[in-house]
């Protein structure tokens, strides 16, 4: 197991009156080697706090955990991980290349191969032309990509990314997605927090949704895409209105656009409706299963408030299961 957090409680004090606010309520999380795990949740759900506890930047009030086989906060484990914080600005007076050399110095990297490694990383995050530019002159997205390059400097076993897509334009997001996929292919483990659910579906093996300071639901995304066909959309042409009315009795909804008719039908009824449409002289244009997206499940979990609703939800999520 690459990392494990067990029953983590964390609260912060804030304001003049030092009011205490509980952020994590008994959070459990474990990730195996080679996984790409996304931590989802609304603002204030505790995603960044979870990552910070894991990295030793904050200490839990109670609970235990391990990172790369070492206790939380262990210095040696940090040699094997790379981290990108949320919305960094970094050292504005240093150039992109100097910033990477700074990080390399702390990792004990040096020698002639370091320059080649830095060149390779700058090339990979498409910042080779800005290598001598000071960070204060770089755009937010460029700094974000540079942060990713520094996280990859030591060829880490575990990559922890806090909102890696925020502030990036579409090509930048694609670059980050590709990098995460590359890391997965190399057998590395990636843990990241994000709000951009479409990216999660593309790059992750598992996702956990944080709500009220604990992992409310865990989803195995491979299972999700395989299992959750909620309806099927059939598009048929060359059907007359009488046949359309007859077939509509089998469908959940029908919509005609010129010569084309769209039927939305339950998966169990799809075969029968298709056969009937073909028998009536119709021609199949397309047939598409409509799956529950991660967004649907995310919104459903985010809506849940009462324990009863949580129990109801637990019965209906097929993949991964609730906690």
């Amino acid at each position, binding site marked *: 197991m690459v990392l494990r957090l067990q029953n983590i409680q964390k609260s912060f004090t804030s304001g003049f009156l030092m009011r205490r606010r509980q952020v994590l309520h008994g959070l459990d999380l474990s990730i195996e080697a080679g996984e790409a795990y996304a931590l989802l949740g609304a603002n204030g759900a505790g995603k960044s706090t979870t990552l910070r506890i894991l*990295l*030793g*930047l904050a200490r839990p009030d109670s609970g235990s955990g391990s990172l790369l086989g070492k206790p939380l906060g262990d210095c040696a484990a940090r040699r094997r991980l790379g981290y990108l914080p949320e919305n960094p600005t970094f050292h504005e007076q240093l150039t992109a290349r100097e910033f990477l050399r700074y*990080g390399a*110095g702390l*990792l004990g990297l040096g020698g002639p191969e370091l320059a080649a490694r830095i060149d390779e990383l700058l090339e990979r995050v498409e910042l080779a032309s800005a290598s001598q530019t000071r960070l204060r002159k770089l755009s937010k997205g460029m700094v974000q990509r540079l942060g990713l390059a520094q996280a990859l400097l030591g060829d880490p076993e575990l990559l922890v990314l806090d909102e890696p897509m925020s502030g990036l334009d579409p090509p930048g997001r694609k670059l980050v997605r590709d990098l995460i996929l590359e890391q997965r292919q190399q057998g590395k483990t990636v843990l990241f927090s994000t709000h951009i659910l479409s990216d999660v579906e593309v790059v992750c093996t598992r996702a956990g949704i944080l709500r009220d300071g604990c992992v409310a639901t865990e989803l195995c995304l491979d299972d999700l895409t395989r299992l959750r066909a909620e309806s099927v959309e059939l598009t048929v042409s060359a059907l007359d209105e009488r046949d359309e009315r007859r077939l509509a009795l089998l469908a959940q909804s029908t919509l005609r656009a010129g010569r084309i008719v769209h039927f939305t039908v339950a998966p169990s009824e799809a075969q029968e409706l298709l056969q009937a449409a073909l028998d009536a002289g119709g021609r199949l244009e397309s047939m598409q299963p409509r799956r529950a997206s991660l967004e649907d499940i995310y919104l459903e979990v985010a809506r849940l408030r009462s324990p009863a609703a949580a129990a109801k939800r637990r019965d209906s999520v097929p993949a991964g299961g609730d906690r």
Partner: protein
Amino acid sequence: MLQRVWTIARWTMVELLRERVLYVVLLFAAVLVGGSTVLTPLTPGAQKKVVVDLGLAAIDALGILVILLSGTSIVRRDMDRRSLDVLLTKPLTRLEYLGGKWLGLVATLLVLTVAMSVILITSLEACGFGWQARYLPAILGSGLGMLVMASIAVLFSTFTSPMLGALFTLALFVGGSLSEGMLRTVGAAGGNPLLESLSLAIPNMGLFNLRGDAVHGTGVVPGQFLVASCYAVLYVATALTLAATVFRRRDFR
């Protein structure tokens, strides 16, 4: 460990030098040239003393200015821009980080002091006054005072905002510069135990002010410099230990 401390110190210095110190050196040159031009005609017969006194005072004041501007935010800035998160998730202990930051600040002040001293020497030579070795202890005294104030600034930067840190550091500097005189006055009036105990916590900056001896040519007694050095080492060690204790316990949000 030393390599990591050195790495932090090196890049901290590079950043500080690029940020403000160049402007401070230019300001120093301007103060020296401008001040000498204005003041020397007003003090016939004592022009040399005025230029030396002004130069040494400016070295002291501008060193403190850099500490207030950069030293008091040295940790907080790293927190705000998320550099601290990146650094502390490298194989680096918090103690190494803090030691590196302090060393980087001290190295910056050293570069600054050397640059300002060179300007002072050049000005004295250019005006035909000549540089004398007795000015050196005054500059070294200023350096010791900067070491102490730098460690206080780093201590404040571990737990408070740059503005409050700068206010507290300035208050300690002013209090520390006046404490000797105040204690003498209070002692002559029968003494005040509260003020006397408070003066133990406030850095006695008067110990590092050797300008009078340098300017008036009375010379610095070696014992005086030794006492100042030992006091500075003790004060720096105490302030940095406190800073390390605070910083080790901090949570970063």
